[in-house]
């Protein structure tokens, strides 16, 4: 009897191991999977999170913007590399003092509910965004607007209270996607669930927590578009499941693909994985108000002490680039600097000069997701080589937020090192520098976790937005970026790659550097 039971256990174990070994084998051998043939003209996009709102002015997550862009269009759009291109405005002029912005609108465009698109429609939208009473999350992008004037049916002029040279980028921001005035009137506060725009697609259904589907807008103004019948966005939080969906063909496009999973998809037939530089930078800010980080030599030493290429290999499986300025190379007015090479001896020498021959103890704060944990551990290991002992505190983001932003007086701040990332959603240098490094942006006002308060730099950042002249702005940012780089309030680490995967028959679906999806012009090629 005992023998019999042993045999059974063995048999069970054997069976189980067969199943498991089967699962572990490369999926390239599978039957049925790569013979996925695309039927019809509808695609599924698997994304990580849930959509929050479909009201552009009240949206602050890149994912919701991605879906909004399939249904609505702005005056200005972004091309693949985030350069501004005409969309609902065919051209524009800016006054030399950067206060008056005149837009010439595209003629013969209608919102999908039949409402004509004209200067009045633009005015309704800009008025709504600039009115604090609308309670919109993106109000700050348009709080400088004094008034919007309808010049004629297809010309509209926006006048600012004070000069703001980066304003065009705010018009190109997804928050300024144009919503049908009739729909705004009809749905009021519920416009976020009934978006109506001039875009390629129209909302069909949105089941929160599950999926959102858009269908072809038959009256779209651009000839020959859209190319698909429908797009379904499905929320798939687990990385492994998203990848499985791409393999089975249940999803035609997935993002994000975690760097460590890229290898499992490369070489599989029918599937392409792409990675391209984003505008997201990773940095370690150092509290420049307090010892030891009040000494620029110490801050530079830390920059020399970390091997950025090794960091990228460990944390991002090689899918990132070392930072060469405080902003990513895709951001407008990027000005490349001389990187701090990996040189632990120089770091030690600088620490000695600064009066820390034996290093010192410090603490690093960061979010507690697995990438950030890996990153802080790597930083800890590297800094230990030059005598700096780092204690890691990985916190849940809400908890960390309150530790950073509940500080009222700068001298009470207990923050020392902080590892984080930043994505300037307007694609302009101003939003990549001012909230993080200008002196009026220390917590709780902004995101200057380095408490960096360099008067010259702050003044230069301000000057750069007082003109809309690209040449003048460029000159100002060239100087700002150089000054900050030498002052080193941050350890400059990397610019992350955006990684996404799609089935080979899908064309013109991609991610913009800001991490938002561009699938409006996607098509299926057989």
């Amino acid at each position, binding site marked *: *009897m005992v023998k019999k*039971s042993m045999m*059974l*256990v063995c048999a*069970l174990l054997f069976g189980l191991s067969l*199943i498991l070994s*089967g*699962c572990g084998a490369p*999926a390239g051998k*599978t*039957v*049925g*999977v790569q013979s996925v043939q695309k039927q019809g003209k509808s695609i599924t996009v*698997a994304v990580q999170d*849930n959509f*929050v*709102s479909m009201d552009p002015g*009240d949206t*602050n*997550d890149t994912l919701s913007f991605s879906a909004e862009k399939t249904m609505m269009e702005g005056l200005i759009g972004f091309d693949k590399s985030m350069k501004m291109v005409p969309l609902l405005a065919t051209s524009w002029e800016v006054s030399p003092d950067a206060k008056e912005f005149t837009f010439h609108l595209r003629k013969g465009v209608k919102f999908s509910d039949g409402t004509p698109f004209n200067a009045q429609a633009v005015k309704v939208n800009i008025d709504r965004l600039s009115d*604090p009473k609308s*309670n919109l*999350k993106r*109000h*700050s992008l348009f*709080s400088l607007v004094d008034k919007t004037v309808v010049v004629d049916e297809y010309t509209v002029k926006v006048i600012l209270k004070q000069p703001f040279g980066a304003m065009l980028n705010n018009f190109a921001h997804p928050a300024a996607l144009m919503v049908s005035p009739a729909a705004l009137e009809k749905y009021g*506060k519920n416009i*976020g669930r009934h978006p109506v725009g001039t875009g390629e697609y129209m909302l069909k259904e949105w*089941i*929160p*927590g*599950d*999926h959102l589907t858009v269908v072809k807008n038959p009256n779209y103004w651009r000839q020959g578009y859209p190319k698909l019948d429908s797009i379904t966005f*499905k*929320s*798939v*939080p*687990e990385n*492994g*499941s998203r990848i*499985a*969906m791409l*393999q*089975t063909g*249940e999803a035609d496009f997935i993002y994000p693909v975690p760097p460590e999973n890229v290898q499992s998809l490369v070489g599989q037939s029918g599937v392409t994985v792409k990675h391209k530089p984003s505008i997201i930078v990773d940095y370690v800010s150092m509290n420049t108000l307090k010892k030891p980080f009040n000494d620029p030599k110490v801050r530079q030493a830390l920059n020399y002490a970390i091997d950025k290429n090794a960091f990228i290999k460990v944390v991002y499986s090689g899918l990132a680039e070392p930072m060469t300025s405080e902003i990513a190379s895709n951001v407008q007015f990027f000005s490349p600097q001389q990187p701090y090479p990996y040189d632990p001896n120089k770091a030690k020498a600088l620490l000695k000069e600064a009066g820390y021959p034996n290093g010192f103890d410090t603490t690093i704060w960061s979010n507690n997701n697995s990438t950030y944990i890996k990153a802080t551990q790597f930083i800890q290991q590297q800094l230990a080589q030059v005598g700096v002992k780092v204690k890691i505190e990985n916190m*849940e*983001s*809400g*908890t960390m*937020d*309150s*530790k950073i*932003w*509940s500080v009222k007086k700068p001298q009470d701040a207990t923050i020392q090192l902080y590892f984080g990332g930043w*994505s*300037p959603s307007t694609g302009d240098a101003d939003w990549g520098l001012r*909230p993080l490094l200008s002196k009026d942006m220390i917590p709780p*006002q*902004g*995101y200057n976790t380095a408490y960096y308060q360099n008067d010259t730099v702050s003044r230069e950042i301000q000057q750069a937005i007082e003109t809309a002249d690209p040449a003048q702005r460029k000159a100002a940012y060239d100087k700002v970026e150089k000054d900050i780089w030498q002052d080193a309030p941050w350890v400059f680490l990397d610019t992350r790659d955006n990684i996404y995967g799609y089935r080979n028959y899908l064309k013109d679906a991609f991610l913009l550097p800001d991490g938002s999806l561009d699938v409006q012009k996607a098509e299926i090629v057989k």
Partner: protein
Amino acid sequence: MLKFIVRRLLGMIPILFIVSILIFSFVRFIPGDPARLVAGPDATYRDIQAVRAQLGLDKPVVTQYIDYVEGLLRGNLGTSLKTGRPVAEEIGSRFMATFWLTVVSMGWAFVIGLLIGVASAVKRNRWQDYAGMFTAVSGISLPSFWLGLMLIQLFSVRLGWLPTAGFDSWKSLVLPSLTLGSGVAAVIARFTRSSLMEVLREDYTRTARAKGLHYNIVVWKHALRNALIPVVTMTGLQFGFLLGGSVVVETVFSWPGLGRLLIDSVAFRDYPVIQGEMLLFALEFILINLVVDVLYAVLNPQIRLE
């Protein structure tokens, strides 16, 4: 019995009231600022203050509580801070997904668990027992995220039989319910086995056998009925837990259920949604306990409901 049920239902009201106070204060003990999280990762200080005022979070906590209770009395659970949707709608749209997953998982887990348990108890220390308990221990020990991903690899990626994600048809239910139910089936199997073995040693079982009843009738009709009482208690508890939504299984299978909603809401400090969900869970548990108590009486008429 009807009187008993009505009394218990009325007794729910004070319990739910106390629960609501506890939940209201506990969610506010979590560090973190909902206004900052709602305003977004690059909001300015002014944006955040505006959001705080708009959400009513700048009011004193006592005022907020009074508003909350007033809403509750009118059947209004409030509005989600994150999406601006009514909480009842947020929860309602996910409840059915979790409900069906729970019912199907519990359904097969109960039947299979019971069968394994009975087989093991009857064939005590024989190969059927070893095999049954081996399966049960595996069911308890396999982490559900691992089991889920393996099932996806096998049945979705390699064989292409079943979908990977979402809740579109009965096919979508198969893998998540297998994953979710395996642990429960194992627990039920073990409970049934030990409880039934105890009952089979009782005098009345021996009497039944002695008067010449067939062994199978003794087991299935007389012994099992009595052995079921602890199993029903256990099943009720498990049912309650599953109705709360399983974060892991819902995440792996992209299931639009309550577990993910709760985790998302906690991460976002979406107080009204957390409150609403916790209140719903409390209600579910109270109701399940009531059903379990009634089932006791049905299984064993000696138990009287007072």
